[in-house]
Structure formats: C-alpha cells, structure tokens
C-alpha cells in the first residue's frame, strides 16, 4: 500500500502539470453546464422536469468521460517510455503504477463532478432528493467514475500510439448523447431507441436523476450497479493481465 500511495502522488502531480487535462477537468465542464443551463435551459421542459434538472447527470457523464481520456494517455506514456522499466526493476509492487493512475483519475473526475453540480446550482438546478437520495446519487456516480477510470487504464495499456488511447475513449464521449442524458429516449427514432435504452449510460443517468429529483426508484438503479461493477471487474482484470503480459 505504501508503494501505491507514492504512485498516487506521482500520478496526481502528472495530472496537475498538464494544463489541457486540468482545463478539460474544470473549465470545460463549467462552460458546458452554464451553456446548457442558460441557453437551452428554458427552451424545453421535459415531462415533470425543468430541462436543467433533467440534464445534470448527462453532463456529468459526458464531461467525466472526456476528462478520463488523459488517464489513458498517461498510462500509454508510462508504458512507452523508460520509466516503466525503472519501476519494474525496483523492489516495489508491480501494479502500483496502475493503481496510481486509477486513483488520480478518480480524484480528477470527482472534482469535475463537483464543478458541474456546483455550477448547476448557480444556473438554476433545483434537486429535490433528501440525504439518502444524495448518497445514492453520489454512490452511483462514484462507481461510474471508477469503472471508466479502469477502462481508460486498459485502453492506455492496449494502445500503440497516444492518439490510439484517445480513440479508444471516443465512444465514451459520444454514448451519453445517445442515451437518456440529453433527451428522453421516447423522442428518439425507433432504431436508436433500442440502443439508447440498453447501453450502460442510460441506467446510470436514470438512477442518478431519480435520486437527485426524489422520483421513485426503479430498475435503473440495479442495472446501473450491475453495469458499473461489471465494467470495473472486467477492465481491472484485463488491465492487470495485459500489464503482466506486456512486460515479458
């Protein structure tokens, strides 16, 4: 654990030293939220929601996915340079490099999430959920955060180029748009509807939104848990295997 802790410090420093990553984590989500809250916020109200109340979870997922591409790039960079050989020839736990990047990614994404929710309040977000609801929302968003961070690590390990690492992450920026995040699924063309309904972003978004707005809990909560935990287990296991294999 000592090794992992030092690696977390290292990865945090790397994140802090990258201006683009910091902008993507803080400034972009801020403007995105302001834009959606003020410009689009008043055009459309959806069913029982004000649009602003509707889109907060979608914006969180989209921004977090976009920020996490830097984690994939950082992992790629480590693997393609001499530094990984130094770590692997030292008497330290091998996977601690990956743990470091995962933790730094989770911290950065949490900051992104906080920035979005804070900004949302300023532009008119009025959630109704109580304390338990907020715990549930925070729990789901954190699980999503962990899942996507490990996916990014796996992609960073699999990439042959830094652009490849970003390319792997690209679907994750797009998926929130083809989900229940920005418009209700019922308004989509039929061929999209099926996909939007069953892809992992939708239950995560629905469950978070239900909690924040104090709507009745439905199946989306369980689907969200299954997806997030499933993805984390899959990505973590594969990442560790790929890491071991890449290093023969």
């Amino acid at each position: 654990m000592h090794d992992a802790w030092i690696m977390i410090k290292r990865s945090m420093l790397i994140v802090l030293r990258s201006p683009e990553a910091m902008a993507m984590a803080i400034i972009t989500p801020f403007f995105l939220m302001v834009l959606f809250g003020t410009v689009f916020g008043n055009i459309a109200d959806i069913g029982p929601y004000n649009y602003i109340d509707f889109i907060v979870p979608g914006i969180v997922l989209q921004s977090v996915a976009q920020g996490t591409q830097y984690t994939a790039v950082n992992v790629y960079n480590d693997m393609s340079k001499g530094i990984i050989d130094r770590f692997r020839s030292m008497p330290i736990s091998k996977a601690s490099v990956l743990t470091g990047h995962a933790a730094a990614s989770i911290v950065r994404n949490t900051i992104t999430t906080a920035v979005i929710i804070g900004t949302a309040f300023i532009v008119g977000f009025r959630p109704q959920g109580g304390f338990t609801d907020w715990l549930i929302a925070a729990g789901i968003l954190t699980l999503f955060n962990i899942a996507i961070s490990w996916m990014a690590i796996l992609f960073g390990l699999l990439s042959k180029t830094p652009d490849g690492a970003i390319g792997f992450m690209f679907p994750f920026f797009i998926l929130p748009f083809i989900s229940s995040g920005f418009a209700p699924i019922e308004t989509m063309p039929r061929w999209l509807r099926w996909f939007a309904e069953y892809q992992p972003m939708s239950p995560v978004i629905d469950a978070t939104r239900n909690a924040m707005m104090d709507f009745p809990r439905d199946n989306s909560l369980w689907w969200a848990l299954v997806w997030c935990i499933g993805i984390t287990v899959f990505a973590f296991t594969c990442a560790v295997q790929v890491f071991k294999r890449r290093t023969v």
Partner: protein
Amino acid sequence: MTNNIITVSHLKKSFKDNQVLKDVSFSIKKGSIFALLGSNGAGKTTTVRILSTLSKPNGGKASVCGYDVVRQGEKVRKCISLTGQFAAVDEVLTGRENLSLIGQLIRLPNVKEKVDYWLTQFRLEDAANRQVSTYSGGMRRRLDIAMSLMGNPQVLFLDEPTTGLDPQNRLATWEMVKGLANEGTTVFLTTQYLEEAENLADNIAILHEGRIIAEGTPSNLKEKMPQRGAQISFSSEKEAAKAMKLLIDNGIAVNGIEPNLPTLEDVFLTLVGEKKEGENHA
C-alpha cells in the same frame, strides 16, 4: 567462484524467429567494472533486461547477487539498479520531484537530505526545481543515473550511459563510474565504443551475433586485437617539433601523431576471422 556477483551461463533469448542471444556466458567479480561491448542490435539491451528481471530468457541460467533472475526476481531487484538506454525520468516533474519519488518508493530515511545530496553530486542544484522537459540530454542522463544510485545498489546496470553525451559529460560519467567501483559497487555497462570499454572496465566481453566472441581484461584483449599505432602527446607544438627532430636524428621514422584505435568493426573482423581460420585448420 564465491566472489562472482553475476554469473551467466548459456543464456539464450529469441524474439519469434530472431535468435538474439544464442549462447552467452560470462561472470563478473564483485566490485569490478564489466563492459559488454557490441554494435547496434547485438543484444546488449536484451542481456541487461534479462539480468534486471525485465525479460525472461528462453534458455540458460543467470544469477545476480546469488539469486536466480527468473525464480528469485524479487530478491534480485532488491540488490540492483537499472539505468536503461532511454532516460527513465518523468518529464513533467522537476528533478527534485523525480528523485524524491524514487527515494520514497524505496523507503529511504531522510529523503529530503538524500535528494539534496544527489542533486549536488550530479551538479543539478540549479535545475532542481525545473521540469525535466527543459533539461539538456546530459542533465537528463545525470538525473537518470542519480535516481538509480539513490538506493545504494550492489549492482548498477548502465545501458549505453555515454551515448549522446558530449566529451566533457562523458569524462564526468567515466569518473563517476570509477568512483562507484572504488566504493564497492559492481558496475555492468554496455557500450558501442571500444575506447570506453578499455578506459573503464576491468573486464570486457564482446557480444557479436548472439555469442561472446572475446572476453578478458583490456590488456588481454589488446593482444588479440588488430594492430594499432601509438599516440604520443605533448603539451605544446614546440615540444612536439623538438621531439620529432630528436626522433628523426636518431633514425626513427614518424608517420604522424593521429590516434589510431581500431573500430569495433575491425575488431569483429579480426576476431571472427581468427575463429573461422581456427575452424578450417581443425
């Protein structure tokens, strides 16, 4: 036997069809400087990677500090330190942060003091708080070596430590290596330069086409090597002219005073040529 800190016997390694190491054996005495000499692609890095537990051999045995590199990797890693061919430093961190992270990872007491010590040792105090991306090649190399030395390893691997350094930095590296050996560290270095191996090493092994084609002390090897001219230097041209006159007066012909070291290629040709002849006679 007991004072050999590294023993390599019949080591083999191939990548798919490419047999890089066919049969490599050598041993290294504790506290000595060993140079593995070979041209591009000879398999120097491959050998270093196997000995530093980064890569597994396909055959043969290797032990470092008395531990098998395959089965006792954990123990081997405790006693070695690696400075790879390409700088293993974090570009976006400062020199100080790089050193400090390594110090913390190996759980040094008083990391701060140690960091300052190594910054001074390697003339990096002025650049300590700058990101490594602003360093010159030589500074980066020095930081890289400093990071390797923090743990006070018994065996230090240096893969082409002077490639790309200017003559001044090269000399400084040589001095550093000699100093380490004096203090008891065993240094395993690879190089493409005969001159470097001769200057530094107690023992040299020449790696060519997957085998060690010659091994021995520099003076040992000199006897087997192609003929070479001698070089005399004087402190001034005037002195040189006087000496020339003396030599000519005494009937000794002087062709010139250029250095005349054989290149690695010459060495290979001679050594490989000899071998072939030997085989033909047998």
